[in-house]
């Protein structure tokens, strides 16, 4: 199970990294989100994979490590805040720079149907 878990995390991370290397804001933001999912999975597993051990006192004999869970929770929230900001920033950069290229140096010629509102 551990091996599969690790491989899954790895693949998710790889997908996220690949997306962050794209040249448009949207895939980059999606990539960052994906990356943060993967990283959360990774961080979560650092306390070991426990079945039937929710960290509620009195419900089990062996508990899952609660600390990584708390850390991941914090990380999820922070990641959410960051992703939200990045998304809006992507929109802002589209609005200001007229392109969704991460470098702002290409125009949106490929999408002639859009007109400025």
């Amino acid at each position: 199970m551990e091996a599969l878990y690790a491989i899954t995390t790895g693949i998710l991370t790889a997908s996220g990294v690949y997306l962050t290397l794209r040249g448009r804001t949207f895939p980059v933001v999606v990539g960052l989100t994906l990356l943060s999912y993967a990283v959360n999975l990774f961080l979560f597993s650092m306390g070991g994979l426990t079945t039937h051990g929710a960290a509620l006192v009195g419900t089990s004999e062996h508990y899952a490590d609660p600390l990584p869970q708390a850390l991941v929770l914090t990380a999820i929230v922070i990641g959410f805040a960051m992703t939200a900001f990045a998304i809006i920033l992507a929109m802002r950069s589209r609005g200001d720079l007229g392109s969704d290229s991460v470098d702002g140096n290409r125009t949106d010629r490929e999408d002639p149907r859009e007109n400025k509102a």
Partner: protein
Amino acid sequence: MTLPWIPLLTFLGVFVPALAIRGGRTVCALATAIAPAIALGLVLYFYLGHDGEEVMRTSMQWLPALGLELAFRLDGLSLLFLLLIIGIGLLIILYTRYYLSEQDSMSRFYAFLILFMTSMVGIVMSDNLLLLWGFWELTSISSFLLISFWSHETTARKGARMAMTITGAGGLALLAGIMLIGKVVGTYSIETVLESHDLITSSPLYPAILVLVLLGAFTKSAQFPFHFWLPHAMAAPTPVSAYLHSATMVKAGIFLMLRLHPALSGTELWTVIVTLTGLVTLVYGAWFAFLKTDLKGILAFSTISHLGLITSLLGLGNSLALVAALFHIINHALFKASLFMAAGIIDHETGTRDVRKLGGLYKLMPITTALTCIATISMAGIPPLNGFISKEMFFTEALSSQQFGGLAWIVPLLAGLGGLFSVAYSLRLAYATFFRRPRQEPPKTPHEPPWLMRFPVELLVALCIVIGLMPTLPQSPILEDAARATVSGEMPEFHLSLWHGVNAALLLSMAVIAGGIVLHLLHRHMMRFNRQFRPQDARYIFEAFVQRLVGLCQRLIDRLENGSLQRYMFLLMAVSVLAMALGLADLDMLTGNLAQQTLDPIVALGAGLLIMGGVLTAALHRYRLISLLMLSVVGLVVSLTFARFSAPDLALTQLSVEVVTMILLMLALFFLPQKTPKESAGARVVRDVLIAIGFGGAVASLNFAVLTRDLDSISRFFIDHSVPGGGGHNVVNVILVDFRGFDTLGEITVLAIAGLAIFKLLNRLRLFMPATDMEGRLWSDDRHPTLLMVVSQTLLPLALLVSFFIFLRGHNQPGGGFIAGLITAVALILLYMSRGVEWAQQRLDFQFQPIAIAGVALSTFTGLCSWLFGYPFLTSTFDHFHLPLIGDIELASALIFDGGIYLAVVGATLMILANLGKLTTAHRPNKDIP
């Protein structure tokens, strides 16, 4: 502790002009002179009231860790230079009063001048190499300011920059040399360094030290090949040239060589480098002085030449040569300063410095002519003036030099050549300016300057004559003491006199004078001869060099920082892969000591879904909506994974966050182009795939390696203390609100900031709004589907109920303020989605920012309450209460903290989403045809 007063006084003088200028120009000049005058008095007072043998020293710790001390010394060498610096400085102040025009800011000029004087005083008085270096560079800076005084002129700016660059660079080399000396000797104290001759010269670092120190000295003293800045520094006002470029600053290099002479000299290396450089400079400078047409240009090259002369004397190294050098320093300062000032007067009166335009001035300005001619004669080394005496001494030393073995003749040859040219250019200077019939009228009709302007020249010329006639006058105590400070061994007996009898030196002198006259007569031919060489203006070369360098740098940097996030991100990822790989390479075995758990099919299914979702999100990224749906699958399965591996809180949080993220991404999808064009070339894709695989592989390996190793962690404590210490059964929640509540406080602060930041970003944002979807269809006209509207209002109370429930039980069961907050926010957002922003805004007629902030505030103040009980921030407390009918209720202060989280989450999330929605309503094209 009195010595520091000398530099300090002069330094305080920097501020005087700005204050005194209100009283008028004369008052300003007088006031400016006060501080240096007192300083000069102090110097003399100290020196004279002091036993000559012992060096006066004082030192104060400044930065002991560096070895920097505020240490000053006053010995003969310092005295000689101090007299020159302050004495001539005072004359310059006087001269300047008349030289500067009304438009020039006199106070500024004086301030710079005094600043420069301070730094020179500092150099010659420092008893610490680092301190010396400090003052050294300060002279570069202040000379930059002085040269560029007429900053509206290009030549002034460029000349200043060049001077600054070259001397500054030399200063940096000097610093390196000083550092090395410090490494060898172990201290920067000059006193100790001077006693460490053997230590330094025997060190393997000696060549480096010597070269670096000499680089500093040579650049400052305009030695070949670093001389070229000096002529261009002549763009400065003449008092500056007179002061800096003849009497003082250029002598700083000489001073340095003198100061460090006891420590560094006496080796073959020293002799070869210093002597040859000096001689070459001597000849080179003199030759070009002969060819120059600008009055100050002639003087500048002549200065270079004379500095070469002094340098070569220093290189020769025996003690008499040193004395000659010291003597010539004085002489040169006297005649050159006066010449510069005279040139300034001529420039001032005629409006030009070009000797081709001048001539016949002796009729109009007889006194100035006389003064200039005397100084020129001194410069040419013609008896009976002081210049002759020191030149004689130079020839004597040159003729008797024993260095260079079989090539020893080269020294007198070059010395003679230099002398020859210098006679020639001196003659030319005097002749062309004063006696030749003018070829054209000068721009202004000249007459004698005001007496006080001429006075400094007169004084200096008088000194030239006096010393020429009575050369023993400065011998004691000035020259002797200065020589004693410089010469490492026994003080030589020496006697300065005009007439030494007929000897080789005298013959050489005579020959040189005669040759000089001949050369002067041949001047026109010489000019023609010179014209066949391509004129190479150092300024253009230098500028071109700098320009090229800058251009090169620009191209390089533009290439590197090409503004491509893709590249930066690639580098980041590549470096990270490297970091992880290096760690993994250090691992003996990937698999650790723990046995793996058996795989159950449901987990396998989940993994399969995750892999599918992840890979497809990436692979289909150009179809943005599909990619997003895949991301959604990943989000769902991740939360299921959390549930599967005993983390209910995480599952709940992940789910709610995932939905809000989806909503945000949908919004982005609308405002961003809906498809990604294919623009990455194949190679780029391959590169990215490789780096992604590398990264993923490294992460997977790390994950596996950690998972298969047992862990001795601190988490047992949390499980043990959750109930007794934190009053909650849900350990994760107790960690969040109690054990690590501080993290959580930070986390909700982040959330609140995100809200604020997004609000900021949306300010005045106008976005493209596509009129059709990505397949070209117009949008549906049904803005708010009825069914959805009805259901959303039905769901709202239920959602609030659920969120309240989840909030309340968070401490003991999965849940808590964060999830509750997100549920509330999402339910409200559903309203926004179904009914539109306007509708919702009317009903939610309060701002969200105060809510978010109130949440943070609530949590913070809950934490602060513990101060009242003398506990640290965020210490929690809990108790059981018994209420009739209801029974036992457990109330923990952490619950209030959690309430803060709830509020912050609701406020921040709504700030993000509602503001975003509001942004678009106003100008949405409802029905436009593309």
